[in-house]
């Protein structure tokens, strides 16, 4: 016999009460855990994905949309920008690096990004096998894309028009897989990288541009195979790195003055996104705390009631030599066990929810949000639940402490 067996026997004697109380608490805790898992990981992902990108230039429209589309690859492009205009920006003296980006096609909802080698270099991507895209229609796959499509080097596929699954297929031009990247933990894992020219080619824009052959024409800084100043062809956006902090002051204004262009700062837009999401997160947090508060009351009432029924039991225990402190300790242990069971179940449930959402919702799976991490906050929740147990058991324990055993025994 020990404290554990005694407390467990009491909890077991009222299985429905115990289950209800644990469940209530578990629900509240799981909402908090899900929110923590999501918001922390989304924040981490956003920061790591936006790392090294100071400014995004694209067609006029919603700046947030531009950021979501070109950095996180979840929204649709705001439109196209003229290559000649993009070049003008790229040549600005405050621009250290400009990475072109051409979107338009996808394969099974994985986006095909026309860009250059600077783009994977942003995320320090390395090759797992094969080589980087070079020729037209060469593609290098993100690790996740390769894993889920089962493609290996040498395979070919036809892209679909549009950025979501089910678009019209460009059957006449097959892409060739020439390489597969190692996992980076970034958005790159879900992308199919190719050259800008490849994207133009599948859209039959190839015939329009003036290619740089042995002519005397200067090559474009963004797409070297194309003559500089070609105004007939378009990109989706441009990712910029500043040469100096001055860029942050001058470049956005400079870009926005161009009639058809806009500049969006990833740092600013993601902060704005957090503010918008934050309202929802806060609302859910309030709901979670209400649930926890109700479960605390429920646990308190359960302990209080069961104590009334057990007054005689407790008096008997005193006749067997139990000190008041021992009984107080038993009641506290009962409260703590209840909250502990609920909390552990809640943390488990929260992780299970995130895990199953990852399985069911493709977008979540793609973001790489995992349920297999424990954040420090979860330990704080666990410690808090112990405190909650003590709080709920406080009044009942105090009553046990001052019970007059002789009166209880004589009264029965």
């Amino acid at each position: 016999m020990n404290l554990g067996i005694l407390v467990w026997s009491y909890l077991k004697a009222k299985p429905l009460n115990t289950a209800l109380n644990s469940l209530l608490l578990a629900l509240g805790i799981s909402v908090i855990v899900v929110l923590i898992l999501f918001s922390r990981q989304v924040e981490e992902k956003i920061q790591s994905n936006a790392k090294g990108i100071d400014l995004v230039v694209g067609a006029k429209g919603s700046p947030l949309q531009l950021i979501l589309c070109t950095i996180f690859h979840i929204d649709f492009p705001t439109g196209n920008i003229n290559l000649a205009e993009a070049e003008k920006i790229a040549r600005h003296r405050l621009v250290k690096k400009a990475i072109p980006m051409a979107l338009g096609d996808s394969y099974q909802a994985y986006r095909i990004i026309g860009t250059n080698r600077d783009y994977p270099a942003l995320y320090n991507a390395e090759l797992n096998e094969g080589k980087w895209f070079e020729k037209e229609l060469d593609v290098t796959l993100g690790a996740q894309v390769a894993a889920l499509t089962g493609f290996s080097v040498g395979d070919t596929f036809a892209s679909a028009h549009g950025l979501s699954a089910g678009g019209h297929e460009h059957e006449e031009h097959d892409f060739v897989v020439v390489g597969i990247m190692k996992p980076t933990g970034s958005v790159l894992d879900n992308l199919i990288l190719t050259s800008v020219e490849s994207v133009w080619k599948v859209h039959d824009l190839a015939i329009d541009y003036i290619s740089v052959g042995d002519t005397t024409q200067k090559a474009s800084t963004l797409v070297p195979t194309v003559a500089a100043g070609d105004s007939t062809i378009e990109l989706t956006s441009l990712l910029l790195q500043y040469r100096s902090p001055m860029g942050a002051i001058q470049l956005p204004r400079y870009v926005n003055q161009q009639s058809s262009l806009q500049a969006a700062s990833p740092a600013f837009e993601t902060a704005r996104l957090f503010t918008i999401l934050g309202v929802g997160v806060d609302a859910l947090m309030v709901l979670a705390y209400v649930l926890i508060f109700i479960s605390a009351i429920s646990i308190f009432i359960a302990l209080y009631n069961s104590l009334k029924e057990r007054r005689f039991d407790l008096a008997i225990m005193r006749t067997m030599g139990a000190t008041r402190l021992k009984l107080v300790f038993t009641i506290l242990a009962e409260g703590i066990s209840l909250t502990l069971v609920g909390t552990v179940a809640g943390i488990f449930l929260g992780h299970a929810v995130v895990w199953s959402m990852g399985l069911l919702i493709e977008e979540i799976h793609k973001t790489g949000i995992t349920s297999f991490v424990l954040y420090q906050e979860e330990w704080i929740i666990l410690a808090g639940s112990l405190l909650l147990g003590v709080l709920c058991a406080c009044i009942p324990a105090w009553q046990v402490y001052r019970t007059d055993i002789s009166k209880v025994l004589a009264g029965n």
Partner: protein
Amino acid sequence: MVAVKNLSFSYPHAKPILFPDFELGNGEHVLLLGDSGSGKTTLLHILGGLLRGYTGSVMIDGTELSGRSEQELDHLRGQKIGFVFQRNHLISSLTVKQNLQLAPYLAGVSAGPDRIDEVLAHLSLTNQQNRSVLEISQGQAQRVAIARAVLNRPSVILADEPTSALDDKNCERVINLLLQAASETKTALVVATHDQRLKSIIPKHIFLNSTT
């Protein structure tokens, strides 16, 4: 083992109850008789250290109880005193055996490895040991209570109407087991009752006079 001298106790707003002096030796048994309200339960509670605030002297196994703190009395109770009540005094969420295991745990003593099995066998409860106490009969429950009371080898067992809820057959069996268990550990026995059936079995009687 038990010595009571000049003992009186008064409940608030009531006349004080005066108790007769008496002494009990090792393994001696006594029947505490009197009408309801004469103070039988009160005396048992005082002897067991459950009630304080009396005047006079109460000695249990050489220890004076009056003036002791609640915690000291708890320890004394666990080590030297066993209680048997009329009914409902087993912990219902536990099994028969767990109820016995509770006694040394709560008293903070060690029962010894075979003591519980020995007591169970002695009171013919071995077959019932894993049953819930809610499933056993009143007679069996009373035997479990006796087993629990003698488990820690107390100096005194205080029994409050231990047989009043039982039929004749069970009454005889239970009281005999109680006497037998008590004599084995040389335990003094104080039985408070108005059960006439016990008068012939325990010859030494103490009468409490009603105060009204």
